[in-house]
């Protein structure tokens, strides 16, 4: 993989980044493991799963980014080995008996710096119930079995795009439910949850990954870094879309008494198409009633005649109450029609977007509240920042990577942990396959207990080569909502936590 050829970045720092040595991609203690395996070990085989957690399934996504970004091709150089050797020595308090210089040099010389690893994985976009194997890793060269678990750290980081994609899809299920109940079609669904999380991410790289994961399920985003990632790593030239929208600074710079001018200017600067305007800078009720509902009413209606839509954005206060009150005020000023399902709709050129305090539960709460008051879910779209991209962690879906099989002195042995202090942490044994069950669901079985042709785990990486190159398009297809999905409303009511 190369950078897009037409880019010429002149700032060296942007190319370097904090880490550009694959030996530094691992927790420090892993540098000491090559000498800890039993003598005679020639193969270490590990697998990754979600051991349960908040949601009963996961959407598998993001491994391809990790493979392409860090592990594909010749990734090891003499300089890296030297740099790591020096750093590790000091880091481990001046010990020379730790760094595996020999092992890394072997990989450099014997394999041209390519990693002798095989990774088999369920196709990206697959929606799989928890407690199933999602990918496996093993060394292909018996001389370097330690390499399998050396890269655990970076492989386990797949928890993040996986969890974001899962949380995002659950929200899609909720939105789908309410659109089905209160609207005539599902047209608004792809743009009903917009990613606002760029600034609330922990880094640009994380924003790009999390934003990409959200776009597996939706098409609305402001996290433009995600579009870059999907173009560069998942063959999608344009994965998401956005609209001109104001922010507080573009309203408040007009002064408290200039709010109506600011709003008017927004509509006139973008005379066509959809625009959103934040409305709570001073007094959201005044904004809805007087500014949109009176002073700019005609302008909004005029824009509406040529297909222009205004999306009003509150940004503070208790979300369900605020959204309902906005709809009612706007309904009073602009009129309301009733759709075929019997629910109230604002005119087609007017909508509300709630982008504050949103989570999967809050969406359900708001839409239920609206439904109870006779309003269609199609009047409202949502934006989410922190809850979408940051308020998740590895424990959300209990993601873990564990060694389950080894070959020691020629013999294959099952490997597992089974802590008496937590049966939830018991790991699977042996080489594993993922197969479909008779009812179309999934099951993890021992590799030798299933027909290899039925194994859903596909070799995706071997000896530095990427064997499968998934496109976002196929990933989206795989992750589409379908009738076999869990009943999300039942899930929400059973899991109040």
């Amino acid at each position, binding site marked *: 993989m190369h950078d897009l050829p*037409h*880019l010429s*970045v002149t700032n060296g*720092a*942007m190319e370097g980044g*904090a880490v550009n040595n694959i030996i530094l991609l*691992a*927790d*420090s*203690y892993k540098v000491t*493991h090559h*000498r*800890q*395996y*039993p003598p005679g070990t020639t193969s270490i085989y590990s697998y990754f799963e979600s051991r349960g957690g908040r949601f009963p399934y996961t959407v598998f996504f993001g491994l391809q980014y990790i493979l*392409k*970004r860090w592990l594909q091709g010749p990734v090891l150089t003499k300089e890296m080995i030297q740099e790591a050797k020096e750093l*590790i020595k000091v*880091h481990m308090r001046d*010990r020379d008996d730790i760094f595996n210089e020999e092992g890394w040099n072997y990989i450099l010389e014997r394999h041209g710096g390519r990693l002798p690893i095989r990774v088999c994985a369920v196709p990206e976009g697959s929606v799989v119930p928890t407690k199933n194997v999602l990918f496996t890793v093993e060394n292909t060269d018996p001389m370097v079995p330690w390499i399998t678990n050396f890269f*655990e*750290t970076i492989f*386990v*980081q797949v*928890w993040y795009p996986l969890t974001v994609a899962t949380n995002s899809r659950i929200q899609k299920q909720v939105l789908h439910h309410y659109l089905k109940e209160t609207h005539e079609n599902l047209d608004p669904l792809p743009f009903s949850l917009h990613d606002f999380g760029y*600034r609330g*991410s*922990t*880094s*640009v*790289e994380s924003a790009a*990954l999390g934003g990409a994961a959200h776009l597996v399920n939706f098409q609305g*985003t*402001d*996290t*433009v870094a995600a579009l*870059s*990632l999907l173009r560069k790593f998942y063959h999608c030239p344009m994965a998401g879309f956005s609209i*001109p929208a104001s*922010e507080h*600074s573009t309203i*408040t*710079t007009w*002064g408290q008494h200039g709010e109506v*001018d600011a709003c008017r*200017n927004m509509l006139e600067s973008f005379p066509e198409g959809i625009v959103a305007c934040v409305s*709570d*800078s001073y007094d959201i009720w005044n904004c809805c009633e007087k500014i949109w509902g009176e002073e700019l009413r005609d302008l909004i209606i005029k824009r509406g005649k040529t297909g222009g839509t205004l999306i009003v954005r509150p*940004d*503070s206060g208790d979300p369900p109450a605020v959204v309902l009150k906005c709809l009612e005020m706007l309904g009073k000023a602009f009129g309301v029609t009733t759709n075929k399902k019997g629910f109230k709709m604002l005119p087609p050129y007017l909508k509300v977007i709630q982008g504050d305090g949103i989570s999967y539960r809050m969406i359900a709460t708001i839409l239920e509240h609206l439904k109870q008051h006779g309003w269609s879910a199609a009047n409202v779209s949502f934006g989410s920042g922190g809850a979408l991209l*940051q*308020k998740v*962690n*590895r424990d959300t879906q209990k993601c873990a990577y564990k060694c389950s099989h080894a070959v020691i002195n020629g013999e294959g042995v099952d*490997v597992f*942990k*089974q*802590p*008496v*202090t937590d049966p939830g942490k018991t790991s699977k044994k042996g080489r594993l396959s993922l197969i479909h069950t008779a009812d179309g669901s999934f099951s993890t079985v021992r590799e030798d207990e299933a027909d290899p042709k039925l194994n859903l785990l596909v070799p995706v990486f071997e000896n530095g080569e990427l064997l499968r190159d998934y496109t976002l398009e196929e990933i989206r297809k795989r992750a589409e909502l379908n009738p076999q999905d869990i009943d999300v409303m039942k899930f929400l009511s059973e899991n109040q936590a």
Partner: protein
Amino acid sequence: MVSGPVDNIILLADCYKSSHYKVYPPGTTKLYAYFESRGGKYPYTVFFGLQYILKQWLCGPVLTKEMVAEAKQVIGQVFKRDDVFNEAGWNYVVEHHGGRLPLRIKAVPEGSVLPTRNVLFTVENTDPAVPWLTNFFETVLVQAWYPMTVATASSVYRQLITHYLHLTHDTDEMAEYMLHDAGYRGVSSVESAALGGAAHMLSFKSSDTVAGTSLLQKFYGLEGVAGHSTPSSEHSTVTSWGRDRELQSHRHMLDTYHQGDAGCVCDSYDIWKCLEEMWGGELKELVLERGQRGGCVYLRPDSGDPKAVVLKCLEILGKAFGTETNKKGYKMLPSCVKVIQADGIDLHSLWDILEHVKEHGWSTGSVFFGAGGALLQKVHRDTQKCAYKVSYAEVEGKGVEVFKQPITDSGKTSKKGRLTLERGEDGTYSTVQHGKGDLTKDLLVPIFEDGTLLQEYTFKEVKQRADQGPQDFDVIKFLQESKN
């Protein structure tokens, strides 16, 4: 290894910001914005991480004609319209400024520890033709919330541990080694691991997140390392031996790394048996002998209720190895063996364990800790309510105060006018609004102007500043109040 997903600064901003240059009041020539923590979980913050953002993304000539062309294409497609992208504005920056950003940033020195609700940095455009630049970079500048929040939380962890060492141990010098960063796999990306790992190292010297050291070397002039680690086993290096050879696996570990410290995970099958029969049995001599050569073995449980598990481990090991009583009257294991608990640790569970251990007469010094997700991932922008807001503008030659004040949430009210950060004679910090501050007293230091970094902080000085700690902060009182 290919470079990361983003290599064009125009793509460092939320999409909607591309539409903003058009909608400021006509005649706007200046936008001045500031960043603060509006409150949140902790009453103070340790400022850290802005220098990384500046050096990684914004310093030097960062914009080229090619980037503008690429962004034009991307933004045009994102909006499906061509009246959004500010091609003229970006080309202006390339042509008139050689691709350097005409911004001035003033910031409190990195490592500074300040109460919340104070200005931490300000940003304004230096060229009146491009005022929109100030808020264009809000997105990436606001990401300073993360290293700052991790640095802040880490400092609280250290104070908590120090508090208990004071009560139950002869010295509190080892506090810096007692919370190990095990969070590399539990963060959302390598870049975040590096940032979070670096931030933790302002308070601790023990870390497995080696990416943090890498970042500090490259971006904060660190010479050598900021955090250390120890040869330690993991489950795979124990379980690959098979259940019936667990003892051999531990012995092999001690033999392989037979000098200095070593860490051993003990809960693969049955932690109690492991401690009683193996460590208290056949391995005991090896541990004692190693201890005589100055080495310590850290025994690691990794499952079960942390509080109960830690205590039971101490009691089993106390029985097997004997205990000493220190000057404060608390029991200690011999110096050759300790417990390290690195599962389920967050601020409140840590406090729970420290108190529980103390109540049972044990010194804090016999238990070390590790944290992963709680340290590096279970934080967010709302933890310290970090926000960036325009507070001052010049429109048609006149200075105007700019602020939001939503009736629906007074906590979101922003500051007004040009700001200074000042310190009174009694040491208290205050942010002076309305341009009324005394610039000679302003603690905000110009650090970036027109693409040039004016101040470069080294890790050493950042840490020195952070080590001074907050004023008037009682960690136990804080924890008690935050429990409710």
